[in-house]
């Protein structure tokens, strides 16, 4: 496995993605919405309910931050569906496979092309979120809530693992479907359990504190390992050429 060869694939796919307005739009709009919209909501809640306790404010702030993990599900699957099903519809996979590049290098290139923009967008969004939340809550809490361990676990452990899992699932789905839209929609199903988790957090059933986030990251990491094996089996030169529909 040569990283440099995978990087050629990744760079090419990144430049293709840059031309897709919808993907670019999602990469900017979603983290921007989370990192600006939710702090404004927190500010509104504080202003409107003077008797609010610190604990309630913090549970809101943590739950809203969980949207960065949800972005980790939504953003990369739309990119990788495009970069794999897109090649499939253009029938450009065969010439690509005919170059001296291994299946693993192509797969890694495609994973990177979806992973890197997602993480950049999440990290940028999380930075803005931390700054705004600090500015808004400092007066009430009396200290700077961010940075803290919870958000570090969230954006450096959970979000990357979730992103990798989402990419793997979208690779597996991409081998079975004919168009980018359905690949994105099917991969989008992964979004549901995360929304349920978010709702559970909002109603205090599954608090999204550091321990719970680490637990979640660990479980999803294991799932991602299993999915990786499926992914490698699906993304095999001969399988792609003779069995992909």
């Amino acid at each position, binding site marked *: 496995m040569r990283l440099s060869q995978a990087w050629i694939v990744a760079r090419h796919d990144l430049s*293709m993605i840059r031309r897709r307005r919808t993907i670019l739009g999602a990469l900017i709009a979603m983290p921007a919405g989370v990192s600006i919209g939710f702090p404004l909501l927190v500010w509104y809640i504080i202003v409107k309910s003077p008797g609010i306790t610190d604990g309630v404010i913090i549970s809101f702030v943590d739950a809203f931050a969980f949207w960065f993990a949800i972005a980790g599900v939504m953003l990369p699957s739309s990119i990788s569906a495009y970069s794999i099903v897109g090649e499939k519809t*253009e029938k450009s996979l065969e*010439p690509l496979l005919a170059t*001296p590049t291994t299946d693993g290098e192509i797969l890694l290139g495609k994973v990177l092309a979806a992973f890197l923009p997602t993480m950049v967008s999440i990290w940028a969004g999380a930075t803005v979120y931390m700054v705004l939340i600090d500015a808004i809550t400092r007066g009430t809490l009396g200290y700077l809530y961010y940075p803290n361990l919870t958000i570090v676990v969230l954006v450096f452990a959970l979000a990357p693992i979730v992103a990798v899992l989402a990419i793997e699932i979208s690779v597996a789905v991409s081998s079975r479907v004919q168009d980018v839209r359905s690949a994105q929609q099917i991969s989008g199903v992964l979004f549901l359990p995360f929304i349920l988790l978010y709702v559970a957090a909002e109603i205090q059933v599954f608090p999204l504190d550091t321990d719970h986030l680490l637990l979640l990251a660990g479980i999803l990491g294991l799932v991602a390992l299993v999915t990786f094996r499926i992914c490698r089996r699906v993304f095999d030169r001969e399988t792609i050429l003779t069995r992909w529909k």
Partner: protein
Amino acid sequence: MIHTDGLTKQFGTVTAVDHLTLDVPEGEVFGFLGPNGAGKTTTVRMLSSLISRTSGSAEVAGHQIGDPSAELKLRHQIGILPENVGLYESSSAYENLEYYGQLQRVEATALRQSIERLLRMLDLWEKRDLPVATFSKGMKQKVAIARALVHDPVLLFLDEPTANLDPEASKTVREFILELKRERRTIFLNTHHLDEAERICDRVGILNTRLVTTGTPGELKLGMSGHRTVVTVDGPMETLAAAIRSRLGDRRIDVQGSSLVVDVTDPDRENPEIAAAIVGAGGRLRQLTQASASLEDVYLKLVHEGGPSA
């Protein structure tokens, strides 16, 4: 350049290519003829190590196929035009070629030169920055062939390069292939266009899951027609036919209008005898020609009979 021995590919219970044994020497343009489903694409995919073989062996550009350590080197030495062009439609011609050149690890300056040379050869240099989506089918096909050549491979596989092209586009693509032939490149050309094979190829093979026959287009045509001489005459046909038989021995002679079609084994010796027999029997000889089958006749006969003619 290519040497295969009993190369076989099965998809489940379907045998796509059955015991193919074939040699293509360096510098040859080899035409691989066969109907749809004959196994041409499967053969090219096996030879370019895109898919595995079921049994048999093959050596391509000095590398054994199926040897994982040689696979990347092999793919670096060959160029492939697949059945579907598979270009990135939203990218320009230049970008398409550049990406493949980079994957082939062509050094940046050499790559720029190679792309420019190819696009100029194909009259596409002026259009290099336009998205491929704006190109005609023939232009796309040319870009795809250029893509197969960007790293200057020693062996080129072309899978039906003129299928689905209009006559004009076919012509430009064919002329380009002839230009590559003049550069003495080894080319393995899948096609079901017989006159294309006849015009371009040094040698052809006819495949119908099994390899039916190989030879130069001339040899195949000769092998098929045997030798038949057509004489156009004025005079009583049956009398003239009898005169030919009495002079050359009993043989098949067909009467077709004012022509006699005579089976011969050695035209150089027998044609003058035929002429003499006709004149001797009081006929007037207007024309004498050696009949030849078209490659199409050979092809249809061999593909349908599934074996070489006796």
